[in-house]
């Protein structure tokens, strides 16, 4: 890893964590309100995707046009692959967990800075991630 990559990593983390806190995504109550379209729906988190996706796309386009990263490496090819059963099953299992507690990985890890009651979730998530990678990967390779 270049020195520049090592500098940008904590900066990106800082921006990402600030964005999660500013939008309210760090609070499961806010996330569950966004997911509750049949109840008292709080659509405000749609703004997160509306803000994040175009900005990310601009940077992706800029990087590809430059033909190299700022660290001087060739731009890696976009991961491709087909929509397969493993992707769909994984997304469904993730959605179930997300809906049960209102926590996806980023906010859960960011919440470690705010409330130690989040620790069991993060440990269970790490165990699940480890299991799926080490065991499932053997008999069900990623597409």
């Amino acid at each position: 890893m270049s020195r520049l990559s090592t500098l940008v990593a904590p900066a990106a983390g800082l921006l990402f964590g600030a964005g999660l806190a500013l939008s309210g995504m760090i609070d499961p109550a806010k996330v569950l309100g966004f997911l509750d379209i049949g109840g008292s729906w709080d659509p405000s988190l749609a703004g997160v995707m509306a803000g994040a996706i175009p900005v990310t796309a601009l940077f992706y386009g800029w990087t590809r046009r430059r033909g190299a990263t700022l660290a001087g490496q060739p731009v890696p090819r976009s991961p491709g692959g087909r929509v397969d059963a493993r992707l769909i099953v994984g997304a469904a299992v993730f959605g179930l967990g997300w809906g049960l507690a209102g926590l996806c990985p980023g906010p859960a890890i960011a919440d470690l800075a705010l409330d130690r009651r989040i620790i069991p979730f993060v440990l269970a998530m790490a165990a699940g991630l480890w299991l799926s990678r080490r065991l499932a990967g053997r008999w069900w390779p990623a597409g």
Partner: protein
Amino acid sequence: MVSGLLHGLAGGLLIGLACGLFFLVSGRILGISGLAGALLGRWSAASRDNLLFFAGLLAGAALVARPGLVLALASPNRLILAGLLVGVGVGLANGCTSGHAVCGLARGAKRSMAATLVFMAVAMLTVALGRTL
């Protein structure tokens, strides 16, 4: 409600900036589950950067979170069950909200569109069922 949307949008801009800068500099996709999963494996050249990313993530959240915010967390048993499901799910799907719903959609990846539709729909259904049960 308007202020909520504006906060969401502003937060989204910061998240987009984070994902964009990360790719511009290092050429890597900023997916939280990918970076976390890599830390669970063997130590590599990227591991230090990943750790620094997470240190920044915690610092950013702590700096900007409203003072006195009390998180509405589920019971410990439900947190453990949900955490396991989230971990297994994002491991199988090779990505979560950041890797698929932000970075993947930003580059128009078919797999990310499919994953985002499925996990949003299932999460909304889970909340709806939980409310009626």
